C-alpha cells in the first residue's frame, strides 16, 4: 500500500530541492503535485482541499532557518500534517471488561468474517483472552460455514443457531459465554448497505441487546470517494468505536486511511495485511506517516526481525559484510533468515529509502526465491565461498543440478556482484539514503 502515493509525494519533495526558498510562486506547482497525488490515492476531496491549504500556508509562513533546507522544512510540514489526519495517538481496544463484547459491522465483501478470525487469533495470542465467535450473519449463504471453518482452524468455538434471528442469537451468545467462561465475544454480522434502513435497524437492535464495548466498522482500503458516505452512515446509526482497514496488502494508495479519522473522528484500530490468520496489526499513526513519506517503518521491521531472526547468526553475517568477505554461503544463510520475515515485498516497504531506489514496487515471486535458493544449493561449498571460479562448465553443471538455465545462473552471479558493490559503498559511507 501507499507505494504510489509515496512516489508522487517524493516527486514533489524533489522539486522543492531545486529552490533556495519556498515562495508563493514555486509552492503552487508543488502543491499541485501533492494534490494530484492525494486525489489519485482516493483521499477524500474535502480532506485534500483542507490539507493542501494548510500545508501551503505553513510552508509559506515558515521562517527560513539556516539549519534546514526548504525540502527538509517541507517534509517536516507534510509529516506533521499527515499525522494530524491520521490522529496522533494509537487507540487500542477496550479490553478491560469481565466479558469484552466486540461487534463487527460493514458493507458486503469488506472482510468482516475473515477479520473476526484474525481478531480472535490476536486476542488469544497477544492479549491472553479466551474468545468466542458468534455467527449473526444469517443471510449470506455459507457465512456460518465460513466462520465455523475459521473457528476450527484456530480452535475457537463458534456460537450459532443456524438461520435464526440475529438479535436473539447475539443475546443468547452472551449467556453462553458467561456460562462457559469466555472473556471475549466477537460478533460477526451480515454485510449491509448503510442506506438499508431495515438492516441498519437490525444492527441497532443487536447493539441495544448486547451493549458492546467495541463496534468496529470493517472497511476495504481500496474504496473510493464513497467511503465517507459509508462511514458516516454507519457512525450516525451506531456510534462506532473504531474501524479496521482491510486488504492493505493490495497496491491501494490507501487514501481511506487519511480520510476516515479526520472526517469522523473515529480512530483506525487495526489494519489487515494478509490473507493469513495472523495478518492483522495495530494501526500506528507515526509509523504509517513514515511509510507514506517513504521513510519506511524501520521500527516494525526491527520488532519483526527480533522475533524471528537468530541474533548470533545475524551478527556473524554483519561482521562479514563489514570485512567485505560476504559470500554466497552467507547469502544462502541470509535467504533462509529472510524467508522467516515474510514476503520480500513487505520487508522492502519497511526499509527507509527503498522506494527511492526503485525498490518500492518490486514484486518477488516466492517461487523465484526458491529458484535462487536451488541455484545456490547446486553449487559446491567451494564455489559458494568463491563465486569467481564459476566458469562455463561449472555454470552448466549448476544449471542442470538446479533445474534452471545457464542464463539464470549468470543472472544470479551478476546480481550478487552488484549486491557486494552496494555493500562496499555503504561501508565506505558513499551510499546515502536520499532522505536520512
Amino acid at each position, binding site marked *: 500500500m501507499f507505494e504510489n502515493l509515496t512516489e508522487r509525494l517524493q516527486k514533489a519533495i524533489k522539486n522543492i530541492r531545486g529552490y533556495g526558498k519556498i515562495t508563493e510562486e514555486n509552492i503552487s506547482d508543488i502543491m499541485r503535485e501533492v494534490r494530484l497525488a492525494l486525489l489519485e490515492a*482516493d483521499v477524500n476531496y474535502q480532506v485534500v482541499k483542507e490539507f493542501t491549504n494548510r500545508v501551503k500556508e505553513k510552508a509559506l509562513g515558515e521562517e527560513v532557518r539556516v539549519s534546514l533546507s526548504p525540502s527538509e522544512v517541507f517534509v517536516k510540514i507534510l509529516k506533521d500534517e499527515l499525522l494530524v489526519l491520521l490522529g496522533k495517538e494509537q487507540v487500542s481496544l477496550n479490553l478491560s471488561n469481565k466479558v469484552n463484547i466486540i461487534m463487527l459491522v460493514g458493507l458486503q465483501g469488506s472482510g468482516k468474517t475473515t477479520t473476526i478470525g484474525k481478531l480472535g487469533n490476536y486476542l488469544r495470542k497477544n492479549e491472553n483472552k479466551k474468545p468466542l465467535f458468534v455467527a449473526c450473519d444469517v443471510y449470506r449463504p455459507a457465512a456460518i460455514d465460513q466462520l465455523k471453518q475459521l473457528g476450527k482452524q484456530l480452535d475457537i468455538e463458534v456460537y450459532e443457531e443456524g438461520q435464526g434471528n440475529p438479535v436473539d442469537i447475539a443475546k443468547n451468545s452472551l449467556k453462553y459465554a458467561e456460562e462457559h467462561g469466555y472473556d471475549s465475544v466477537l460478533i460477526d454480522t451480515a454485510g449491509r448497505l448503510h442506506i438499508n434502513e431495515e438492516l441498519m435497524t437490525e444492527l441497532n437492535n443487536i447493539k441495544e441487546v448486547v451493549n458492546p464495548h467495541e463496534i468496529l466498522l470493517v472497511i476495504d482500503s481500496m474504496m473510493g470517494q464513497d467511503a465517507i458516505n459509508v462511514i458516516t452512515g454507519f457512525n450516525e446509526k451506531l456510534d462506532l468505536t473504531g474501524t479496521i482497514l482491510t486488504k492493505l496488502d493490495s497496491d491501494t494508495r490507501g487514501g481511506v486511511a487519511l480520510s476516515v479519522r479526520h472526517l469522523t473522528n473515529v480512530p483506525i484500530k487495526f489494519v489487515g495485511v494478509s490473507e493469513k490468520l495472523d495478518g492483522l496489526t495495530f494501526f500506528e499513526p507515526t509509523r504509517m506517516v513514515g511509510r507514506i513519506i517513504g521513510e519506511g517503518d524501520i521500527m516494525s521491521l526491527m520488532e519483526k526481525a527480533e522475533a524471528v531472526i537468530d541474533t548470533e547468526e545475524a551478527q556473524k553475517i554483519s561482521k562479514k559484510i563489514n570485512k567485505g568477505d560476504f559470500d554466497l554461503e552467507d547469502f544462502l544463510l541470509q535467504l533462509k533468515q529472510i524467508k522467516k520475515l515474510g514476503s520480500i515485498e513487505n520487508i522492502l516497504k519497511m526499509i527507509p529509502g527503498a522506494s527511492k531506489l526503485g525498490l518500492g514496487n518490486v514484486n518477488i515471486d516466492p517461487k523465484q526465491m526458491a529458484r535462487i535458493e536451488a541455484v545456490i544449493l547446486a553449487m559446491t561449498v567451494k564455489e559458494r565461498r568463491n563465486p569467481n571460479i564459476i566458469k562455463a562448465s561449472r555454470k552448466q553443471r549448476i544449471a542442470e543440478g538446479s533445474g534452471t538455465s545457464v542464463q539464470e545462473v549468470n543472472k544470479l552471479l551478476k546480481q550478487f556482484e552488484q549486491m557486494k558493490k552496494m555493500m562496499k559503498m555503504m561501508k565506505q559511507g558513499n551510499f546515502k539514503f536520499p532522505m536520512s
Partner: protein
Amino acid sequence: MGIFNKLKNIISKEATVNSYDKGLAKTRDNFISKLNILNQKYKQINEDYFTELEEILVMADIGVETIISFIDRIKKRVNKEKITDPKLLTEVIIDELFIIYVDEDILSTKINYNDNGPTVLLFVGVNGVGKTTTIAKMGFKLKQEGKKVLFVAGDTFRAGAIEQLLEWGKRVACEVVTGKINSDPSSVIYSGIEQGIKEQYDVILIDTAGRLQNKVNLMKELEKINKVIGKLISDGPHETLLVIDATTGQNGISQAQAFKEITNITGIVLTKLDGTAKGGIVLAIKEKVNIPVKYIGLGEKLEDLQNFDLEKYIYGLFKDLLR
C-alpha cells in the same frame, strides 16, 4: 450532438429502465443535484465553475487523469464553440462522457457463445467484490433463457466458499462441481470442464478465489487455470469477466490492468451499484485499459443482474438535467 438526442428519446421509453433507475437512484440524485446546483450558481462559465465540476467528477470516482483531460477538452470546446451558458454546457459534458467510454468502439454486452460444445465463463477479481454471488445471478439468468448450466467451485482457498456456491447451486437448481478445500483449483476446474463436456452442458460458470492483483503467485495460479481450460476447450474461456465492486476507487484501474496482463479479460461486472457509490472508475478503465462493462449488479436478489447499457447508465446519472 446525436448521442444527446438519442438520450432524450430514451426518456420516452422510461418504463424499460425503471429497475435500472431504482438501483441508481441514489447515485443519480447526488450527482444530478450537484450539477444542477452548479448550473444555478453560475451565470457564466469561469475557472470556479470548472473547479466545482472537477469536484463532482472526483466524487463519482471517475479516474483523476481521465478527469483532467476531460476538463481540458470541455474548456477547448467552450472556447471553440463560444459557449457561455452553463445550461448548454451540460449537454457538452454528457456528450464528452460518452466519448470517453465509447471512443469509436463497437461495444457489445452479449456473451460470446461457443458453437461446438460448452461455453466457458471465468469469473475473476480481488477479494470481496461479489464473484460467487454474481455467478449465482448469472446462472439464474442463463437458466431462464433455457440453458443447461454448470457451476465449478474454483475457489478452494477461502473458508466457506465451496459451501456458498453449493448453497446457490441448490437455490437456482444448478449442478456444482467441487473439490477439497486447499486443493489445486486447476484440478477442480479440469474435472468440472470434463464433466461439462461429457454431460453436454451449454454453459460452465467458473468461480475463482479472490486475489489481490499484486500477489504474483496468485496471478500465476490464474495463468495456470487459463492453460488448463485451454487444454480441454481450445478457444476457452470464451469470456473472462472481471468483477469490480462499485465502491472501488482509483485502484480499479490497477486491478483492470493487472488482470488483463494475465488473462484476456473480455468484460467487467460492476457490482453493488445499489449503494451510494457511483462506480465512475469504469469510465477510466474503459478509456485507459479498454475493457467494457458487460453486466451490473443492482442488489442481493437473483434477478438483480442486468446487461450494462451505457445509454441507460449515463441517462440514469443525468436524467433530471434532460427534462
